[in-house]
């Protein structure tokens, strides 16, 4: 088993996140006690709408990663499996189902457990697993569930009016559901404010991703997987915007002063797929050999926010989400993007994280390997679950990473020898 789990942070701004997160979860519990309504949400449920209705959101995938990072996944996954959920299904789901259905012998959940929900909201696209997971939770807890649907659009964004109409109907359906089950009312002005803030935060993050092309890398995956957190879970807030402004300023400073992650950057790696949340220190493992995980593809943002498309903020959301597919997307598109990023970020080698229980990323990995092979970029496949630490074998993983780095370093040496004049 791994002895340490957190990644060492190189940036000061990133060090703020654990406290932000702890405060956020504490706030959700306090909100619940104060009588505010709490919604358990899957990723991609727009918190901007919930915030505009004074409803507190708890994102369960994130809570699962917190459980994993606190080394609780074995106990919770086992409990989830005892309750009948196959090892094939999402590690996050097994953790939460274990928490909900497991007995008294379970260890204490982080932050005392997520705030008790009043309603559940799930988006039906992006993956199959969350539907099964959320419908099970709704039944177990006997709570109302709203399914937010959307056209899939494998080809990416489009302006098809019928797609927009459907997406809008789903968002309005969500608002109607929230009004019915929480007796709160929807404030379009607040939504507009949050959307604007979220758009700004997105744009700053896009800039930050671009800045990571710089050699030496000003921020590696060790910081980045933590730095994404506010953008995913505090989106639409002033706090979130301030965080990314600060992060961008720090990045600029590091670039100006040539401050990298390691004294001498010998290798630039990319992490494809989800990280192993129970052992993020792996992101630092390469540093001893002068390696940096310069970029990761899991939460990558490269598109600036679209300008406002409509006065009405709900219609605006529908328009923008139809015109621009932020998540998933077609297989071909996702593969091309990853190869392009590997080239643009001067990547020497890609680590392909095969998480068998996360079908969304897992399906893609061999095809991605093939594409990277064709592009002449070396890869290493690691097959471990992103949340269930029982699938991880420290010795094996490190042995393979060592060999991969040796290979890449030798390759780099070879290149340099060719360039040197005779």
């Amino acid at each position, binding site marked *: *088993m791994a002895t340490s789990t957190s990644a060492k942070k190189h940036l000061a701004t990133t060090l703020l996140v654990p406290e932000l997160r702890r405060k956020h979860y504490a706030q959700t519990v306090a909100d619940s006690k104060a009588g505010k309504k709490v919604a358990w949400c899957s990723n991609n449920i727009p918190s901007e709408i919930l915030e505009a209705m004074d409803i507190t959101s708890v994102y369960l995938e994130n809570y699962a990663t917190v459980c994993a990072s606190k080394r609780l996944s074995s106990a919770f996954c086992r409990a989830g*499996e*005892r309750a009948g959920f196959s090892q094939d299904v999402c590690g996050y789901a097994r953790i939460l189902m274990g928490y909900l259905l497991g007995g008294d012998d379970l260890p204490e959940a982080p932050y005392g457990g997520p705030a008790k929900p009043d309603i559940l909201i799930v988006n039906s696209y992006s993956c199959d697993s969350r539907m099964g997971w959320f419908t099970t939770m709704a039944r177990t807890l006997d709570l109302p569930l709203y399914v937010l649907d959307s056209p899939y659009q494998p080809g990416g964004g489009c302006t098809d009016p019928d797609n927009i109409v459907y997406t809008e109907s789903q968002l309005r359906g969500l608002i109607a559901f929230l009004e019915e089950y929480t007796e709160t009312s929807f404030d379009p002005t607040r939504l507009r404010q949050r959307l604007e803030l979220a758009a700004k935060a997105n744009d700053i993050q896009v800039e930050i991703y671009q800045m990571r092309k710089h050699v030496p890398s000003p921020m590696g995956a060790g910081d980045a997987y933590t730095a994404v957190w506010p953008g995913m879970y505090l989106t639409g807030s002033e706090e979130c915007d301030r965080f990314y402004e600060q992060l961008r300023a720090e990045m600029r400073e590091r670039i100006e002063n040539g401050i990298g992650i390691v004294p001498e950057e010998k290798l630039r790696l990319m992490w494809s797929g989800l990280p192993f949340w129970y052992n993020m220190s792996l992101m630092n493992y390469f540093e001893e050999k002068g390696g940096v995980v310069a970029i990761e593809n899991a939460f990558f943002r490269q598109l600036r926010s679209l300008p406002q498309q409509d006065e009405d903020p709900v219609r605006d959301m529908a328009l923008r989400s139809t015109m621009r597919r932020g998540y998933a997307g077609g297989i071909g598109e996702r593969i091309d993007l990853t190869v392009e990023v590997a080239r643009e970020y001067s990547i020497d080698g890609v680590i392909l994280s095969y998480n068998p229980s996360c079908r969304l990323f897992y399906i893609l990995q061999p095809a991605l390997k093939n594409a990277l092979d064709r592009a002449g970029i070396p890869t290493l496949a690691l097959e471990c679950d992103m949340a269930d630490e*029982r*699938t991880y*074998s420290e*010795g*094996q993983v490190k*042995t393979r990473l060592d060999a991969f780095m040796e290979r890449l370093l030798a390759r780099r040496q070879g290149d340099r020898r060719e360039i040197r004049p005779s």
Partner: protein
Amino acid sequence: MGEALVAGIDVGSHNVSAVLLGPSGILGHAVLASAEEGERAARRSLEEACARSGDLPIPEAVVATGCGRSHVSFAARRSSEVLCQARGTHHLFPQARTVLNLGAESNRAVRISADGRATAFATNDKCAAGSGRFLELMARVLEVPLEEMDELALAADSRAEVSSRCTVFAESEVISHIHRGVPKAQILAGIHAAVVDRIVELAGRIEVEPEVAVTGGLARNRALLAELESRLDLPLLVPPEPRIVGALGAAIR
């Protein structure tokens, strides 16, 4: 079955066992390694059981079970291992409500009603991890005689981590433990823990109800039994000859 003698034969992948049953109980039994083809091994095992009964004749009423049961042409009936394990266990331990049958190649967990019928079951025969074959493989890798494995494992004061997910994975982990000089006892303790992990998982599929009996070849492995008892937090009922329970259950049929 009345006054007549009945025989049960369990044609497993490693052993063929036979039980001769009369109105007063088990009259003779035998367990032979099934090195030859099923039909002959079955016959030999039955002959041996009869010989040990004080040379009673081979009965007409023969019921066969085990993975090779279809090869026993002289059997009057055939019955599934699940049901035979339930009946055989109930005969030996009427208070048992769950039996964990741990064989060379496959495991099964069966719930037993108060009147000795199987009411639910789960099997694992696709994957080697958790079976006797896994332990045999590990014995070879560690160069430890199979019969000494459990004693060594019990002597360990701590345990090396061995994956329970996959035999191939586990094997390479064991080899790296060996290279790093980890004492064999600790590795063996880890191996036994991994096997028990899989057994507990299997048992979880039918919801274990006490009392719990353990049968099959692996039930002679004291380290495994100790670990299993600790994991389930339940005392285990183990017959003196755990490899004949299937044949016994067949005979009761």
